[in-house]
């Protein structure tokens, strides 16, 4: 019942960020790596969307594609669409994009120890963002920088603002980075593994801080991590990525209670302590493959415990796992679960060929 209500309120407002069939590929001399291969998801205001997956599954490239920070030889392919607040981002010029970066969409990176410039004071770097997007200078900007540092919970901010990054501890630096990201009141905050490099106690503090800030400012947060515990803590909705594709998407409670895709099941099983009865921690054997050709099969098939013949021939599309759950999708030939397996395979096949036609 409660879930139906949230579903209703979700659909009321238009999403802040709409990613549709995003494809980002890197063209090297040897091969073309399709780091992000046709993913779609939405983020609404005030909502936290988590993206989980192993290293190399394309999480960070997704974030950089949204920020327009994919460097050569990488490129966002034609046919991708990123709509932010109704505006199409993929068609923007570099200069238009730049005025968006830092002001409407901000990003917090993984390693706070290296993501601040060591030769400038923390205040200087916050003020730079203020000057670029809000045209604040001098004493006014310093005042604002101090306020921002206070807002992210840095004590004695008026002294800290004149200090260099190396005089801050790791957690303090991540707070400073968050303050910098919030300097221009962004609507969307992309966090690329912001807690990975921190101690667990500091992790908890940073997550709490993000939570408070989200409430205060009605921020939309895209939260990238490979830590299932963190995801459970922060997000409203989770997208599970594997080899450049979103394999499952569901509200967080639903995903943790009832994961459908074998990959999500494997991920949850490999959290230490989740299976207290067994002697050994269960893992997913093997590595994430490097996606270097358009998928005509399931990329998880070689590692999948439930794989069957069709898995290597039919590309699974994102479909609702059953008729009742409209906001729980999985890209797996086992679903929808309320039809027979042969029918399900056929459904995926049909959907796949439809998509190909529409792309052409």
């Amino acid at each position, binding site marked *: 019942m409660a879930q139906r209500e949230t579903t209703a309120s979700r659909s009321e407002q238009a999403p802040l960020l709409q990613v549709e069939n995003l494809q980002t590929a890197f063209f090297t001399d040897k091969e073309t790596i399709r780091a992000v291969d046709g993913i779609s998801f939405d983020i609404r205001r005030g909502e936290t969307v988590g993206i989980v997956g192993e290293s190399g599954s394309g999480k960070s490239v997704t974030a950089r594609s949204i920020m327009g920070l994919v460097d050569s030889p990488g490129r966002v392919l034609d046919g991708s669409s990123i709509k932010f607040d109704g505006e199409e981002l993929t068609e923007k010029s570099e200069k238009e994009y730049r*005025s968006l970066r830092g002001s409407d969409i901000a990003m917090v*990176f993984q390693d706070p120890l290296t993501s*601040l410039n*060591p030769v400038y004071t923390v205040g200087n770097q916050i003020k730079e963002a203020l000057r*670029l997007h809000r045209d604040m200078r001098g004493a006014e900007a310093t005042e604002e920088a101090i306020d921002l540092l206070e807002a992210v919970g840095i004590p004695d901010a008026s002294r800290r603002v004149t200090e260099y990054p190396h005089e801050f501890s790791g957690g303090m630096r991540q707070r400073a980075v968050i303050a*910098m*990201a919030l300097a221009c009141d962004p609507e969307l905050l992309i966090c690329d593994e912001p807690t990975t490099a921190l101690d667990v106690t500091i992790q908890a503090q940073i997550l709490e801080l993000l939570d408070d800030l989200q409430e205060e400012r009605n921020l939309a947060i895209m939260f990238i991590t490979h830590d299932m515990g963190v995801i459970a803590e922060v997000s409203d909705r989770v997208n599970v990525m594997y080899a450049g594709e979103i394999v499952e998407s569901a509200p967080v409670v639903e995903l943790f209670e009832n994961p459908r895709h074998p990959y999500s099941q494997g991920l949850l099983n490999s959290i230490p302590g989740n299976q207290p009865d067994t002697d050994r921690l269960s893992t997913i054997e093997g590595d994430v493959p490097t996606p270097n050709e358009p998928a005509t099969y399931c990329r998880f098939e070689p590692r999948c415990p439930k794989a069957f013949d069709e898995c290597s021939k039919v590309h699974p599309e994102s479909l609702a796992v059953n008729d009742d759950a409209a906001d729980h999708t999985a890209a797996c030939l086992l679903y929808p679960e309320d039809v027979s397996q042969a029918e399900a395979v056929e459904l995926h096949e049909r959907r796949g060929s439809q998509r190909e036609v529409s792309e052409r």
Partner: protein
Amino acid sequence: MSRWQYFAKRLLLSIPVLLFGTSITFLVIRAGPLDPVSAILGPQGDPQAYNTIRRQLGLNQPLWQQYIDYMVNMFTFNLGQSWVLQPDTSVYSLVLGYAPRTIWLGFWSVLIAIFIGIPLGFYAGLNPNTFSDYFASFGGIVWRAMPNFWLAVILMSVLSQSEKFFFGFDWQTFLYSTNVTGPPPLPDPIWKLFTNPDQFVRALKKIAPAALVLGSASMGNEMRIGRTAVLETINSNFIETAKAKGVPPRSLVWKHIFRNALIPLVPIITGEAFILIGGSVLVETVFDISGIGFLFFQAVKNGDMPLTGSLMFIFIVLVVLINIVQDLLYTIIDPRVGYEGGA
């Protein structure tokens, strides 16, 4: 600790270094085959005169006595007089006479290296793996690889018949008629150089080939290191953070990349000063510029003990001072370098 306290501490700590360096110098000069007496007398001196001169110069005194005299003289900046090269001329007046030409040479060769090498390196680093990068990098290796003495000789012979190589462009009559070699015409007093543009250009043209040769190796070095430093900075996380903040490319390069890339270049630039002391001996000899390097070379060759020792002392003081300046520069451009401990 404030910057000035740090500076005072460094000065204090440099005294043992000076003591050690000067002692080694004394040892090398006295233990080596230098024989100023026969240099003064010539090959056919009779033993009587030999002993007289030896006594007059104080060389018959015990070594420890000579050592103490030498050290006391040096540290009270009593640099003594030349024995052989220009007898009875004080070392001070010799240095004052020869140094301006070396300083003029060194100044331009450092400037050439800094203003050509570093910009080229930064350009190559900002445009990696393009044709211009390969061109600059390859050029840097070539410059680096050409030894001073070889380049000096080649440049000299090319310039002295430049009309054959450069389609009628004649270096010797270009702007002012000069020879390729020879000392630069520095006016007396020296500051006339800056009030009289004619004198300035004349002196510059004369020193240019030698400065190019002397600066070439450092130029190549600075280019290579500059390129690496820029590449390393460009790929660091804080550049990505800055990009995500919406920093435009121009201030990305000048604010965020430039200053960080300069840090590894500081020791390279100051290190050049040492190369200039050593390298100028060769280049000054080939281009016939009678500067300090030339003077030092002559002093050693002729067994002029006090002149050699005093010049060495001056070199040691210079090296120590340059080192202190380098550390000060570090504290200015890199806030992570602290004043405490580890010195």
